[in-house]
């Protein structure tokens, strides 16, 4: 019962803040509501007993990605004026595309056979995650590491001072 109430509250928070993110005029306030929405997703992960995922969500999304978004907004001054309209003239086409996407997503979600397990979540999931990362899923793990390394090296090369 309490879990139901918490789930409803957090879902309303996530969805409400997400709607605010796309409708608020001021881009900086939009990024703040995005941060709130990501926190709500972390709370939903905790309700699902995936604490590791919740903490990683806060660390990666709020601590890194949201900080970078705020950096980008701060460094571009003319986004901050509140007289910029947040909608342009193609809103009818956008509305049609959004409704079609909603129908497709709804059909996919309702027709998938979601498999539920009746066993409880393991009390300590971290050893299981660790051994899965270096055992069964080692190739995606290494490929993701190489991808991050390539991104980092590319950013350093682009932002480097030109040697005279």
């Amino acid at each position: 019962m309490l879990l139901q109430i918490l789930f409803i509250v957090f879902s309303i928070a996530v969805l409400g803040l997400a709607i605010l993110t796309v409708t608020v005029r001021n881009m900086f306030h939009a990024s703040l509501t995005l941060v709130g929405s990501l926190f709500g997703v972390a709370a939903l992960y905790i309700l699902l007993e995936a604490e590791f995922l919740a903490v990683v969500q806060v660390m990666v999304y709020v601590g890194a990605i949201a900080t970078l978004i705020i950096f980008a907004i701060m460094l571009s001054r003319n986004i901050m004026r509140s007289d910029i309209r947040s909608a342009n003239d193609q809103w009818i086409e956008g509305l049609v595309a959004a409704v079609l996407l909603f129908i497709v997503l709804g059909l996919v979600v309702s027709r998938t056979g979601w498999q539920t397990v009746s066993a409880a979540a393991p009390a300590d999931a971290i050893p299981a995650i660790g051994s899965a990362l270096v055992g069964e899923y080692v190739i995606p793990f290494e490929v993701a590491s190489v991808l991050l390394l390539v991104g980092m090296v590319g950013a350093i090369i682009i932002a480097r001072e030109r040697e005279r």
Partner: protein
Amino acid sequence: MNFVSDLFRNIGIWFHTWLSGFLPSWAVLLIDYVLGGIILLVGILVAVLFVIWVERKVVSRLQDRLGPNRVGPWGLFQAVADVLKLLTKELTTPDGAEKISFNLAPLLVVFPTIMILAVIPWSQNIIGSDLNIGVLYIVALGSIGVMATLMAGWSSNNKYALLGGFRVVAQLLSYEIPMVLAMLSVVLLGGTMSMQGLVEAQGGGFLNLPYWRVFVIPLGFLVYFISALAEMERTPFDLLEADSEIVAGFFIEYSGMKFAWFFLASYINTVLLSAIATTTFLGGWQGPFVQRAPVLGIFYFAAKTLLVIVFIFWIRGTFPRFRIDQLMGFAWKVLVPLALIVLLLVAVVVKLPVSPLVQQAILFVSNIAVLLAALGLLGRRLRVATERQRLGGRI
């Protein structure tokens, strides 16, 4: 005697059973949690007042003067006088400041630091919430504080605040990496991410002393301590809030109680990072005879944390500060490689098929060897750079 040997836990159990006599169980749980939160909050605020007094006394004695000695015995209530003064100041808002984030930033800077209080193990049975991902929780909350200082610096509509804000974010993000890697080495040695588990893994042996991580990976402790100094923005890394440099950096435009929140966040951060250093490296509440009398644990913890804090203030009174480029170079070119080497050593040695005592001896010896090698390399580079400067180049 048995009641006193685990005094605080027994008081808690007695209170709980007394409440259960006339309240339903959900009300007892609620009261337990709310009371625990209030005790933690009041405790940390009183500790911060004490730490402010300790800082002013230690730094003033190092500078051959007396420090505050008028308000209360030995100047103990000076912080109270400061808070009263800050309460009476006008809360100015600069013209053109972004009002929502200007007022939100002080709150967002303080809340993550208070939230970290929940996972610190004060004693064997006194901990807010023993999460099995305690270390990761601390790291995640640290990253929220970074965003809040960025908001504070930018929303002040002040170029110096913005510059200070960007530099603070660069410093905090750069020094978070060696800090997390050093904590990760301790997690590898302890085999668990839960803070209480990390302290329990440092027990045993003669007087509960030999397995403290500072005796096993001293280089890891050094890396963690230097990174924590930078995370607290303390000398020698306080370029961004020193009065002679950038006049308070990212919180220039904050006055009165809003400034008091940043001040509070800085001191809570100091106390908490010292507490985390004590928990992960100095053995937390472990000490002689702590299995027979668990109430001693909280005294050992407080003593060790206070030792680390006084050491930090000692360093403040002694060293000059780094330039911003020296700061960043030190983090990325010295601390991160050292932290990675320590992590690699721990990961390799922990899997060797020898007894734990031999493993610890190997780790200790290899740590000292790597530290001496690094000091030798750095010394050679310093000599080369000084020669170059003497001959007319630049360092």
